[in-house]
């Protein structure tokens, strides 16, 4: 006989429900899991599709503007690593990801890894045994950017989440992940 336990509070479920209600849609089990996990999304994609690959769309250093500085809690003008990738399986795009990484908060070794095309940020964190806390900041649906239209060959809306990773109590990575709303329905 199961005795009554304590109900666990989970704000992510509430965010997901809010998106479903706002857009009058029902998200699939896989979509919901991909939105709520705090670990790297590639773990799930690998499980679902077999080993997935990474294609680097853009990777460069730039000065942070006010918006990025606010996301990373750094001073405007501080240098960041801008990393834009597409996770794919045999050339089929699966998930678009954009990351901002404050370069002053990472080691040379991680910097070297970031330039490695095949390594996801999640893999870099694992590979370097970095201990983190992770916070999912936003879950929403947005219109695709021209880059995403080009990549996914669709105009449909994108299911998106933003999350940050903390290390030494400072933000070390801000990431946004997006994919077309019709993806991962099964």
């Amino acid at each position, binding site marked *: 006989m*199961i*005795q*009554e*336990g*304590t*109900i*666990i*509070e*989970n704000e*992510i*479920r509430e965010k*997901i429900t809010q998106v479903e209600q706002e857009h009058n849609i029902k998200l699939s*089990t*896989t979509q*919901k*899991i991909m*939105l*709520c*996990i*705090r*670990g*790297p999304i*590639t*773990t*799930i994609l*690998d*499980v*679902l599709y*077999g*080993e*997935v*690959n*990474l*294609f*680097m769309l853009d990777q460069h250093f730039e000065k942070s503007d006010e918006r990025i500085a606010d996301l990373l809690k750094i001073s405007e003008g501080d240098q960041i690593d801008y990393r834009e990738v*597409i996770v*794919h399986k045999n*050339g089929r795009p699966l998930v678009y990801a954009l990351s901002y990484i404050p370069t002053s908060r990472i080691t040379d070794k991680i910097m070297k890894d970031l330039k490695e*095309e*095949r*390594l*996801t940020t*999640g*893999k870099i*964190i*694992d590979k370097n*045994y*970095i*201990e*983190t*806390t*992770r916070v999912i900041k936003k879950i929403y649906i947005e219109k695709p950017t021209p880059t995403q239209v080009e990549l996914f060959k669709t105009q449909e809306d994108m299911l998106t989440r933003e999350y940050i990773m*903390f*290390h*030494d*109590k400072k933000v070390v990575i801000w990431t946004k992940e997006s994919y077309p709303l019709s993806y991962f329905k099964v």
Partner: protein
Amino acid sequence: MTQDKNEANKRLIEKIEDLENDYGQTFSNTQKILLTTDGSITAILDVLYGKISLFTLDQHFGIADESHAKLVNVNAGDEINFREVLMHKGTQPLIYAVSHVPLGRCSDEICSDLLRADIPIGRILKNYKIESRREVNNIFIEKSNAKLRELFKTDEDFLARDYVIIHDDEILMWIKEMFPVSYFTEI
């Protein structure tokens, strides 16, 4: 596009594939995700089922024997918090979990929360902003026992995994999670 191999999670995928081959059964996507995720399983269950509950079956402090000590990398004789919980949705049991936490490695506030029943470990880490990483050690099939049969009302085999949560380069917790092989096949 590049065809360079992404090495991430290769090991876990191989463990799942090996287990499927050994057991002669293909596992569902949800089962595979629950076995491989390095995030909190509680969050996944919560999103899939709505509000789930945690019931503490047992929680006590004890002295580590050789086998317990090895799991959390302490000396035999050190004090450990043993915790056994069931995650459930109403009357439906979902996942059974056992954890060992070496007392010497947890702060007073974490120890205090562990003593207060029914707070998931993931939630405790989050509440205190504990920076950590998880390493999945084993993914395997385990035969049911009297306790599991009583809880889940089945004598089928269980899918199981054990993993450690590492903080400050030391094992803060060892956790084993289990559910019947027929669970999470339809969702």
